[in-house]
Structure formats: structure tokens, C-alpha cells
């Protein structure tokens, strides 16, 4: 893998890499990609992609509110909360 591609991929995954990590990962990721590149040898030219293992009928839900009263518990499970808000480090 090219160094540039690695840096872009890391940025998209919101990862900060040190120069040492970049060097180490470039080699490791290249190895992983080589391993999977075996798959590109298969001829799929006339095949439609399989997007779902099981395609059943249209699975629709009626537009009726459900009653769940566990909002407080769900918010409490976040690392930090305040006045019902989930609190995270400033991302702006």
C-alpha cells in the first residue's frame, strides 16, 4: 500500500498515526491486502452482486409509536451525560 493511501485511510478512520506506526502499518496492511487480493482472481463478470443472503418480501413496519421507557438507561450507558444530553469532547 502506498504511504499516501495509508494516511488517507487513517484520516477517514479518525486515527492519528506516528511516523513509526505509519512505517510499521504500511507493511502490515500491504500484507493483508495481498492476502485478500486472491479474491480478485475470481471471474464475476456476468454475476449480479449478492447484497443480501436472504431476500424476503418488502419488510415494512407500520407507522405507530412504540412504548419504550428505557431512554434514561440508554443515556446512562454513555460514558458521560448531563441534563439528558450525552456528553463528548468538543468536536467542533
Amino acid at each position, binding site marked *: 500500500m502506498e504511504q499516501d493511501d495509508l494516511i488517507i485511510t487513517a484520516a477517514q478512520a*479518525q486515527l492519528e498515526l506516528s511516523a513509526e506506526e505509519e512505517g510499521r502499518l504500511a507493511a502490515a496492511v500491504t500484507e493483508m491486502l495481498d492476502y485478500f487480493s486472491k479474491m480478485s482472481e475470481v471471474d464475476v463478470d456476468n454475476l449480479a452482486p449478492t447484497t443480501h443472503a436472504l431476500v424476503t418480501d418488502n419488510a415494512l413496519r*407500520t*407507522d405507530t*409509536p412504540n412504548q*419504550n421507557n428505557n431512554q434514561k438507561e*440508554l443515556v446512562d450507558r454513555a460514558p458521560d451525560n448531563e*441534563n439528558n444530553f450525552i*456528553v463528548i469532547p468538543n*468536536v467542533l
Partner: protein
Amino acid sequence: MAEYETFIGLEIHIQLLTETKIFCGCKSKFGDEPNSNVCPVCLGYPGVLPALNEEAVRLSYIVCRAMNCRLSENAMFERKNYFYPDLTKNYQITQFSNPFGRGGAFEYESGDEIKKINFHEIHLEEDAGKMIHQGGKSLCDYNRAGTCLLEIVTEPEFKTGQEAEDFLQAFRRTVRHLGVCDGNMEEGSLRCDANISINTPGMGLGRKVEVKNLNSSRFVKKALGYERKRQEKVISSGGIIVQETRLWDEDRSVTRSMRSKEQAHDYRYFPEPDLPPFRPDKNFFAMIENSLVELPLTRRQRLVECLKLTPDQADYICEEKALADFFEKTVGLGADPQLSVKWLMGNAAKELNRTGFQKADLGSEGCPLSAERLTELLMMLADNKIHGKIAAKTLTAVFDENKNPAAIIKENGWENAADDGDLKVIVQKILDENPKAVEQIKGGDEKPRGFIVGKVMAATKGTANPQSVQSLIMKLTS
């Protein structure tokens, strides 16, 4: 400055009027306590399964159909991957390869012309949550996360900000008419982003800049006007337009660069494995056809042609579907179209305002003024059973007492002072009681006329038709 050609496209997001969110049964409601309408699905807890809201699908197809799109028979959902805490899953479920609607076109009025805009596509997706950034913290509220959002993407065919604004207003009217969105830009249920590029004529699109934060239709024209001038200046001075996203700053009336990261986004779309494709059948498409209503522009033209409204009157009536329906109902019940429109634009509007109702409330159960009641009142007025001032008083009473106009008029004895015969007797009596005034009138002095009219009105408790009184005075003093 017609040196350059301008290309403007709009991306409009509308929140659909569903009860619940797109993939879970949480309420879709604006203004509740933070995180009160959340569940494991819309908070992105592991192991949950989304289930598509059928009403969201129905409303989406109605919009696609009304915009004359090609409707998908095999619609897909995809994951759009990005890391930002306004969605907890690290991806947004949206439509990419097979959206509900593609192509399509819409006619709207701009100036005195009917113009046409083509659409690129219309797709359904989940909305993101809201964040408040303060100090070292960001506060996250996921009530809006997972609500039903329909995105309408136009082709970059608007030539001016004015056209874009005119289209946006017509579009807003239309989605309100269709009953799919309340169109409230302040609350964000209708949001608009634009892209704009300029180029030497004949050279095609230029490098496009996205303009965000256009949360009022007024901002659209201003922001695009500013941005076009900015780009002209850059190019004229030999510069190059940077492809970027800019924010409209309403306070300073400028667009500002958002300085986003250099590399283009790569959302790595892939099919959402948890949602099967949506494959509507014939019945579904028939149901969509049946859900269509006449669109505002067509309706407006019909009201002008068939009911002889002036263009301004028709604009006013067609602004709200409820008002247009109400108006047409009064006409159907026998009210004179001109009389009805005048009262709807005048006294009825005043009364609605006074009592805290909206025009959209007309015809709804809670509103005291029904089409039947207004028609009853207007027909009494047209038949000369009451005169204008009494009709206005009666309308006020309809709102205050929630009763039929005929009953109110009867209870108060507000019918026109009987027929002309009775009125003649009264006028004659007043004239007899005021010989000096009669003398002056006969001598050509107009002033005592008003005095006599006043006396007659008092004697009839205001029910006499002032015009009839005038003509009787004329007749009896000549």
C-alpha cells in the same frame, strides 16, 4: 456582468410528516426534552435491526410522483460511512445506487414566466442528531437522529439566485399541499443547500462551490448573489475557484470557507445488509396515484380561469391547501367566488388572527368558521338580508360564540331593517321629527343627511342598509 454563465443546483432536505422515525418506533417530534425519543436502534446500539417505516416510503413516493420522477421498482438502501457523532453508528443509512426517484421535472413561476427545473434524484435517508458545542464539550441530542429525511437534488440549471428562491418557495408550497412536510424552515423541517459555479459561456459547468446554512428562502437569493460575485472577482483577477464548502453568514452577508480537509470524502457506500430492497407492486403504485392532489400552480391557474379570481387573489388562496380547499367548498355550497375570496382575505383573515388560528386551520374541527357557516353568512349578505357591517359583526360572533351565523343574526335581531316598506316608514318618521333638517336638505345642504342616516341607524339598531336609507332620504325629500 454577463461575462460568465452561472449554474446553480439545490439540495433540499424535507422532514416527512410521519409519526415515528424511519427505522424504529420512536416518536418523530420537534422540541421534546433531549434524548427522550431514543431507543437502541436510533442510538446505534450493537445487535439491533432497522425496520423500514411504510408511511415514510409512501410519502417519499408521493413526492417523487408529484415531481414526475421515474419511480424505482427496486429501491435499495446503502450505508454511507463517516465518523461524526451526530450519528452514533458511524454510518448513515441512505439510498445511493437505486433511490426511490430519478429524473423528473417541476414547473414553477418566476417573474411572469413559467420555468422548468429538472431533478437529478430523490432519495430517503435518516436524519442526524443535534449537537451543542460549549467549552471543551459537545452535548449530543439524538431525538432527530433517525427521523425520516427526504433529499431532493435538482440539476444545476438555475441561472440566478432569484430563480432558485422562486423554485424553493413553489416547492415548499407543493410539499405542504401534498401533506408530506410542514415546510417550516426555522425549525429545520425544510433545509436547503446550494451549489454554484460560473464559467465562460459555452464551456459548461465551472468548479462548484457548495453553500450551506441557507435556512430561510430569503437567504438563498442573497447568498447565491454574493457567491456569484465573489467567484467572478476571483476569476476576473486570474485566480482559480477552490472546490469547497462555504457557509452563509447572514449577519455579515458573506459566505465563509469551512476549511475542510483537503482530500475528497470517500463514504465507501455499500448495500445495507439489514434492509431488503423495496420492490413495490402494482397496488402500491395505484395507491400512490390515488394519493396525488392538484398541485398549487395548476390549481392557481384553474381558479383564475374558471372562477375569475385575480392572480393575486389566486396566489393568496393557493398558499395553503386548507385555505384553497375551504374556499372551493364555499363556492361549491353556493357562495359567490369574489365575495368569498374578499371575505377570506379580509375579515376572516382578521378574525383568524385575532383568535389565534392559522389559515391552515380553516376547515379543521377546532376552528369555529366552517365553509358552511361562511357560505351561510355570505349568502345572507348577497341576498341583502344583512349589510356588510352586520356581516362583519356576525363573523366576530361566530368565532366568539361558535354558532351558526343565521342563529346569531336572529338572536340579535340583526336582519336588515325589514323590507323597504318598513324602512320607508321609519325614515319618514325621522324626517317628520326633524323638519329643520329636511328644510336644509331640500335647500341643497348635504350636511344634515348624515344626521338623518344616524338617527335611522339608531332606530333600527344598526340593521338598516345605509345605502337603502340614503336613497330613501333622497326620494322622500325631493
